């Protein structure tokens, strides 16, 4: 474990914690961007260059901007006067803590059996492109269809004002 890993992990976890804990919704969106950037750095650290840059482009470039737009359109930046947490927040917190305890226990128990390949897989972007056009062409087409459907669906859902408004 290198020092770089610890720094990036601390950055991601701090961003994620801030994203779910801060009161102001806009601050949450900015903290979410920090968490996404930390995860992108972690992908780069794992020798997954394409996934890292895709993470930067898609999450920081698109999803974070989308979240900010949604916050502006819903006037969610107005911090509510009372609590920002749900009525039964304690149940959610206990559930999340229990799931983390279970996952951490499983990871630590299976640590000796985990694979540890020291050599990084030699995968270039050209290999990824060839595989996307060859072996993975059917999933690629399905994702293309899904993205088209999501694009049209999101526009229709968000655009439709009222029947009487016409």
């Amino acid at each position, binding site marked *: *474990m290198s020092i770089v*890993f610890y720094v990036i992990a601390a950055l991601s*976890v701090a961003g*994620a914690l801030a*994203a*779910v804990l801060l009161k102001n*919704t806009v601050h949450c969106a900015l903290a*979410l961007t920090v*968490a996404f950037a930390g*995860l992108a750095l*972690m992908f780069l650290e*794992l020798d*997954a260059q*394409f*996934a890292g840059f895709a*993470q930067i482009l*898609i*999450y920081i470039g698109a*999803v974070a901007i*989308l*979240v900010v*737009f*949604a916050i502006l359109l*819903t006037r*969610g930046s107005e911090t*509510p006067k009372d609590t920002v*947490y*749900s*009525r039964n*927040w304690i149940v959610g*917190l206990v*559930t*999340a*803590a229990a*799931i*983390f305890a279970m*996952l951490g226990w499983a990871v*630590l128990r299976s*640590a000796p059996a*985990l*694979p*540890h*390949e020291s*050599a*990084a*897989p*030699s*995968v270039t972007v050209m290999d*990824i492109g060839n*595989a996307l056009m060859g*072996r*993975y062409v059917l999933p690629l087409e399905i*994702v293309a269809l*899904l*993205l088209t459907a*999501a*694009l049209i*669906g999101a526009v229709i*859902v*968000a655009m439709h004002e009222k029947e009487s408004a016409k």
Partner: protein
Amino acid sequence: MNPLTGYLLVAALLFAIGLAGALTRRNAILVLIGIELMLNAANLNLIAFWRYGPHPQALTGQPDPLTGMMFAIFSIAVAAAEAAVGLGLVIQIHRHAHTTDLDAMNRMKG
């Protein structure tokens, strides 16, 4: 320590944070942020196993060295579609009910 263990623990922590955010926040947008964090934690697991797992040669009928990476890339694409539709739904609900407070959304009938 095995490096894979560290990445898996970070992913588990991010997943738990995202789950806690999705379950405890009132604002629907914050719930979507929590879901995005959980999806990202799953992606981190995929990439970490791809990096540290065994890499079989690209023979026919065997998993090639790209499988984990491809899984993560498709997962990122699906997550982007999910975010677009989810935020569109939140905007529409806000137009209809004038709130994004999930505790206030207790009617199915408009």
